């Protein structure tokens, strides 16, 4: 475990931040390189955000345009909440990587390209008529093109690797160069390489050699202008223990924590689907926490088994993405009717239908809030970032058991895959919410559908002596839970189900993320748009604009004060990575003229896009 010494920094209005993008063939190990660079950045005490962007194919053919894998990191000396709009530095390991990424590079930005890969075949695959590093077509940027492949081969010669194996060290060479550029310590990465290749010390040494060579190259090479070292000061973050975390990890951890705080065993029923699978993978390793994971035959069986487990006294959890959640709709209705606790995690991806499995989107909000037959109210909460996802998962578990209801937790492909530094929480600071199962009949006999003050029904699990009873999906009779088709009873039960869920809003206060109550513009967001919105609002406020940022975690029911809050603003802007779904809920609930700002390209918002929308709304 490394330690960072940092001096109290003075607050810095125009933060120094740098955006670097590593891009190469999916075989070039760019995600790995990015991951390690992220770690060293964290260790350097910078705040950071990342955006991994890999191809849909498992292993796309080498050198092709659709086979390009990229990893972007934004780091700086003040709060960083997005992976950054345009890169300052682009490292392109082959022509295809250059072709697909250079367009995003800031004018005047730096391109580092491995000329070793810019040969006929690769240029053709990248559909380049002429060689861009030679034909001057890159003149609006700074170009640093040299034969990284050759230099790498040179550096690992002593280890007598085969050509293919030797070239695999390219990414470490490049990482070494990057570490030099940003004045980073190689130590932790050397350690990591040693442990990674523990079984094959030759490979370990070769990679370390390449890493050092890249670093040395930066120091020694007499290069003209572009390549210079720059030091990004550490960001002012509170003291404590830190780690990096992806959304998939933090949700898994949060669910485990939630079950533990409820002092329940967890049953997780899942079926693989991108980008949700990672949660199943993480949880399947944590059996010592009373976690049982079950890979079902399909999404319907996944949720059905989770409902069965909840009925039997575990905390049932299921997870999927859009198409799979669609299949769960009927069973969610059963959980609503039988009033059993259940957490449903939706890692949203581009839709409709199979859509864009590896791209991010927020277009399942309608499905979450409205997407069932019958009047079927369902609490919905949404995570804003990998770190936030931990608390959201706990919150979902709490609501599920405290109200005996299924709960939908929304995250998305961006949150699931992106890594960010996370101040490791002190678990002692979380109030437990232990479940008490009913073990005695109420006086007046057994009433499985009796209500407490929160309108919650008792949780009675099979195995309890004397409380045998039957439940099911047909309308229930008040208190007894017997089948009942009577008009008044259905009316009453419908309202109980509705009011129970609405009751969750009691005591839920929506706070303002930036700005004051009331004013010209409130930018209202939810989920993973948090980063770009907060940056855009920060910039607008820095310019002196009267703008506030409100970010909603509780999508349904909405916090009780939200309506009042919104009425205090002249204009309400709702940026969403969909065609305007939260907007519908806000307009319906509060009759506020919420204006949508929509992006559905499978890419997160750029800060500038939201900034512009604010500007034009002010104009």
């Amino acid at each position: 475990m490394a330690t960072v010494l940092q001096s109290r920094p003075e607050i810095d209005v125009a933060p120094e931040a740098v955006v670097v993008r590593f891009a190469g063939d999916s075989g070039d190990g760019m995600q790995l390189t990015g991951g390690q660079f992220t770690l060293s950045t964290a260790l350097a005490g910078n705040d950071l955000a990342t955006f991994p962007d890999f191809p849909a194919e498992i292993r796309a053919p080498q050198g092709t345009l659709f086979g390009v894998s990229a990893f972007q990191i934004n780091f700086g000396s003040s709060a960083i909440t997005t992976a950054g709009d345009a890169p300052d530095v682009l490292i392109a390991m082959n022509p295809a990587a250059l072709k697909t990424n250079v367009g995003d590079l800031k004018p005047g930005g730096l391109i580092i390209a491995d000329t070793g890969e810019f040969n006929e075949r690769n240029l053709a695959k990248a559909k380049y008529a002429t060689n861009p590093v030679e034909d001057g077509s890159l003149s609006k940027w700074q170009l640093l093109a040299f034969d990284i492949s050759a230099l790498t081969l040179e550096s690992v010669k002593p280890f007598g690797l085969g050509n293919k194996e030797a070239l695999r060290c390219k990414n470490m060479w490049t990482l070494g160069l990057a570490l030099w550029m940003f004045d980073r310590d190689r130590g932790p990465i050397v350690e990591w390489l040693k442990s990674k290749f523990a079984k094959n010390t030759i490979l370990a040494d070769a990679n370390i050699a390449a890493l050092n060579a890249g670093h040395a190259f930066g120091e020694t090479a007499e290069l003209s202008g572009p390549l210079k070292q720059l030091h990004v000061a550490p960001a002012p973050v509170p003291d404590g223990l830190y780690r990096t975390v992806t959304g998939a990890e933090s949700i898994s951890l949060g669910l485990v924590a939630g079950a533990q705080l409820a002092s329940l065993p967890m049953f997780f029923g899942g079926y693989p689907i991108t980008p949700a699978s990672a949660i199943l993978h993480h949880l399947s390793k944590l059996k010592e926490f009373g976690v049982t994971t079950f890979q079902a035959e399909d999404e319907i069986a996944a949720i059905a088994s989770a409902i069965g487990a909840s009925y039997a006294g575990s905390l049932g959890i299921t997870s999927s993405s859009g198409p799979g959640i669609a299949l769960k709709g009927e069973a969610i209705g059963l959980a609503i009717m039988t009033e059993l606790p259940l957490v449903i995690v939706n890692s949203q991806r581009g839709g409709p239908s199979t859509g864009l499995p590896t791209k991010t989107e927020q277009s399942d909000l309608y499905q979450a809030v409205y997407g069932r037959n019958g009047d079927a109210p369902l609490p919905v909460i949404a995570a804003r970032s990998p770190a936030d996802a931990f608390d959201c998962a706990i919150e979902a578990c709490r609501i599920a058991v405290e109200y005996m209801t299924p709960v939908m937790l929304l995250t998305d492909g961006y949150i699931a895959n992106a890594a960010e530094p996370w101040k490791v929480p002190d678990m002692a600071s979380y109030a437990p919410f232990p479940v008490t199962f009913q073990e005695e009949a109420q006086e007046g006999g057994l009433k499985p559908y009796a209500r407490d003050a929160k309108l919650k029904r008792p949780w009675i699990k099979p195995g309890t002596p004397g409380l045998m009873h039957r439940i099911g999906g047909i309308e229930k009779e008040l208190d007894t839970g017997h089948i009942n088709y009577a008009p008044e009873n259905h009316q009453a039960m419908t309202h109980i189900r509705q009011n129970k869920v609405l009751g969750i809003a009691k005591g839920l206060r929506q706070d303002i993320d930036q700005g004051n109550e009331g004013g010209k513009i409130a930018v209202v967001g939810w989920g993973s748009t948090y980063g770009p919105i907060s940056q855009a609002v920060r910039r607008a406020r820095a310019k002196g604009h009267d703008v506030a940022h409100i970010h909603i975690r509780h999508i349904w029911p909405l916090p009780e004060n939200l309506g009042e809050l919104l009425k205090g603003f002249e204009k309400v802007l709702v940026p969403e990575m969909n065609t305007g779904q939260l907007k519908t809920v806000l307009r319906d609930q509060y009759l506020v003229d919420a204006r949508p700002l929509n992006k559905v390209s499978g890419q997160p918002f750029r800060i500038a896009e939201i900034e512009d929308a604010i500007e034009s709304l002010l104009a």
Partner: protein
Amino acid sequence: MNEMTTIKVQTTIKDWETDQEVRWCPGCGDYAILKAVQRTLPEIGADPKNTVFVSGIGCSSRFPYYVESYGFHTIHGRAPAVATGVKLANPELDVWIITGDGDALSIGGNHTMHILRRNLDCQILLFNNEIYGLTKGQYSPTSREGTKSPSTPFGSVDRPAKPAAFALGSGARFVARGFDVSKNLPDVLKAAYNHKGAAFVEIFQNCIVYNKDVFADFTEKKNADEGQLWLENGKPMLFAKGTKGITLDREALTLKVVEVVDGNWQAAGVIVHDVTNRSVAHMLVEMPFGAFPMALGILYDDPRPSFEQGVIAQNEKASAGKVADLQKLVSQGETWTVSHAGPEL
């Protein structure tokens, strides 16, 4: 049957009856099956508090409301999936799945296959009336070719599914057959209960409203001798009061019916039933009724470790020696400490 079935509990039929009015059509075969189950439960020493009946949707799936135990009337076709969650969450429970030919083989076919493949410890009672009763009489996957129904006014053209054959093909380790009014039904249910793992029981049931007497050819008294082949482990496959038997045509390698002359079945080469012979089980479930009698009783019974046993064993093994330290868990991975005081020691 659960882990602790050694602990038998004293109950009577009455203890297994609920206060709910039974709402099947007068004369429905479901009544007889309900009685048979309520008769069986005390005999096997089942414990109401540890007994759970899980059903899908259909007339048959109303069953749990009438048994004084825990019960879950789920959604159409999903009972096996719900039951899997119940059993994995609490292996101490005796799980009975009640389903129909539509529930288990039409919408629910996939879950039926997978619960059998995984071999979850439970009893699956499939009430086969060869029709959709609850929705008022449409043909089902087990309806015979040419069945006229509201959705097939000119007769169905599908080739019917064979529940027991489907179960075997799905990997079932226990396959049995009985029918609603059969006095042997409780014995079949007992055998199913005593089988550790997924026990599949096809119960022919008379839907007197929409598919009356389709099984009369073998269920009715007068047809019993010629129509019913009751299988017993270690006993020759005899029927028609022992005057006929089932043998294997050693040339064609298919089953055939042989006459048994004054009880000398050995001479006739009648097969001795071995409940662990999967090859013969396949032949028995495919015997075309008419040319052959209906094979009833325990067709196949060859246990394998059950799914929940495997899961629990693995959970324990993987947890062994580990402590569930939440703080440690969240602190895993590459970490670093930020400190304005200076590096910690």
